[in-house]
């Protein structure tokens, strides 16, 4: 772990005098895993699913009843645990850990069922082509019902009959580009609908998302130039446009610093002398790793400069595939 890197400490110092960007709130904001909803976001391919699951395992290990919600039917959790696809069901994965994959069509159906207690009305609706069409075509409605379901799962008093109560809901959010739009849906609907149940629903969701005591966001980044730029932009729009609390930024997949400067010089010396292929290959691999680790440290320092939320690092895992064991290992370092 490189959490104590001097670059980070330096940036922290510089930031200390800056005013807080988020609105003032009453009482202390709890730590990330003590909240009720944690949204894990970031650009595509940065390891959001892995971080979401590691956070889930960490919370579960502390005895918090935790559920990980997937929203793009990627079924990452079931693959990691070598289970059948979880689908739109709350399935137990480990002690204190459940998973659900939220399909917007199922979420829509459930929403209607909860709204309409009269069977005839429901049947009419589900049989209607207009409803099917409207549900599929209305911009943003799928995102809205998806967030609605996440909120329902997080409620202490579940609307679904015999719904299990969770202490913590972790969302593996869609890749950014769509990510901010996804979280913005409730406000958009609250603005469009001036009255009526959708208005009420959208407002409840909006209030929940921007409540810094209940909801937090963790952004996942990679130690490369462009992901760092995008993370900074994402934090800004989450904070300024959505108003959600960004509690943490994870720099994921950071290479270890295996060799000192002096060691690198010695390896350089032997990498040059030609005939012994093995020595050359091994020392060149070390030089290569050292260059990558250096360049990653530069990106880490840049990230520390450009983000406001506390920054943590997660190590690169040198394994062909990341399974339960590797995520378990990350979960012990993640909080």
């Amino acid at each position, binding site marked *: 772990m490189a959490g104590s890197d001097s670059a980070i400490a330096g940036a922290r110092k510089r930031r200390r005098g800056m005013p807080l960007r988020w609105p003032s709130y009453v009482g202390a904001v709890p730590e990330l895993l003590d909240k009720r909803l944690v949204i894990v976001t970031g650009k*595509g391919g940065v390891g959001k699913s892995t971080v979401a699951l590691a956070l889930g395992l960490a919370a579960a290990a502390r005895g918090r009843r935790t559920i990980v919600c997937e929203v793009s039917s990627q079924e990452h959790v079931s693959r990691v645990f070598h289970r059948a696809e979880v689908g739109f069901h709350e399935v137990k994965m480990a002690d204190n850990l459940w998973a659900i994959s939220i399909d917007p069509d199922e979420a829509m159906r459930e929403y209607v069922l909860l709204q309409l207690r009269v069977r005839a009305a429901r049947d009419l609706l589900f049989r209607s082509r207009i409803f099917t069409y409207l549900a599929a075509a209305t911009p943003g409605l799928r995102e809205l019902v998806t967030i609605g379901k996440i909120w329902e799962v997080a409620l202490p008093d579940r609307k679904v009959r015999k719904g299990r109560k969770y202490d913590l809901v972790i969302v593996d959010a869609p890749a950014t580009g769509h990510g901010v739009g996804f979280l913005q849906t409730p406000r958009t609907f609250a603005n469009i609908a001036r009255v009526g*149940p959708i208005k009420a629903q959208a407002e409840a969701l909006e209030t929940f998302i921007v409540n810094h005591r209940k909801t937090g966001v963790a952004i996942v980044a990679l130690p490369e130039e462009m992901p760092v730029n995008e993370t900074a932009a994402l934090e800004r729009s989450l904070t300024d446009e959505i108003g959600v609390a960004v509690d943490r930024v994870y720099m994921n997949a950071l290479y270890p610093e295996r060799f000192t400067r002096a060691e690198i010089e010695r390896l350089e010396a032997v990498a040059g002398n030609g005939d012994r292929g093995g*020595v050359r*290959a091994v020392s060149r*691999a070390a030089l290569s790793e050292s260059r990558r680790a250096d360049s990653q440290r530069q990106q880490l320092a840049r990230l520390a400069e450009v983000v406001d939320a506390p920054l943590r690092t997660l190590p690169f895992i*040198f394994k062909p595939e990341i399974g339960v064991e590797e995520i378990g290992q990350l979960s012990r370092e993640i909080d």
Partner: protein
Amino acid sequence: MAGVAEILDGKRICICAGSGGVGKTTTSAAIAAGMAARGKKTAVLTIDPAKRLADSLGLPELGNEERKVDPKLFAEAGVEPRGELWAMMLDAKATFDELVRRHAPDEETRDRILANRIYQQLSAALAGSQEYMAMEKLFEIYAEDRYDLLVLDTPPSRNALDFLDAPRRLMQFIEGRALQVFMRPTGIGMKVFGRGTSMMFSVLRRITGVEVLEDLSEFFQAFSGMVGGFRERAKRVNELLANPESCFLVVCGPQGEPVTEAVYFHRKLVEAKLPFGGVIVNKVHYESELSEYGPQVEDELIGALDDEDLARRAVENYEDYRALAARDQRNVKRLTAEMRTRSVIQVPYLDEDVHDLTGLMRLNEYLFAAGPKERTAIATG
């Protein structure tokens, strides 16, 4: 084994597709820069809201029109560009607005759509709209015939299939026959719903709220007059994608999941009879040049370094890489077998991050390397 230049020979459109986070934007930019260096007048179109391409080409902003990349940047990268490189960042919302202006039957309809709150707030977020608008802009620029080659970087969706699916989804949305039946342009909003002809709407009203329906009703009504124009346009865009002058390049990473997705996407391309050009695997951990590797290497290294601890750690590091390299080669082999293609281009995981033209030109040593040269390049990476 072909390089990008061979794959794109005789092509005028190159579409880089793949799931998020595999380096599509960088690859698209590198291909465009490479073709420009080889004498083509090339434009690269990206829709990425994070302005990644702008960063990589040293452009402060791209806007919804093409900008020429300063030839000086090529010179700084040590390349003499024989062609031209242009780049643009596509604004999906602006493109959608242009489409509405073009297809609206009259000014009143146009203004009603552009002023509709649902259109304003959600047109950019509409399912498939980013993808479709990328194709739309591609079509427009292609029709103007100003470039030898257009390179399209597809939107950053999790799933590459979203791109292919976009025209169908957008048409489904715009046509909306079922809704039109109930919303004959006799009156808007309350009148339509209040007539009591439809129990359906009273139910819908209970779960949504009246005003949402009003706005939606108006939105769909306004759009209904443009269906013909949109449908015709979508058809021509689809024809362009299937055109023999077009070419799909599938971009992926070497890990298990991206490879599986790439194989699936390739199958869909073939099924849809779209022209597949090849696959680019980014960030491959290169196989070591050592065919014989054993415990003697550590002893040799101890001898050379005179430091047992350092030698052991260097070997440990090497073994970590070997494991990743072995995985990557397994996945590339699977990819090659399942796609039954010879056009698999591997780009090694470079020591340094690619974020400028110099970096793009370094990538091109691999993207444009044909045959055994590519192998050598990777082996000495």
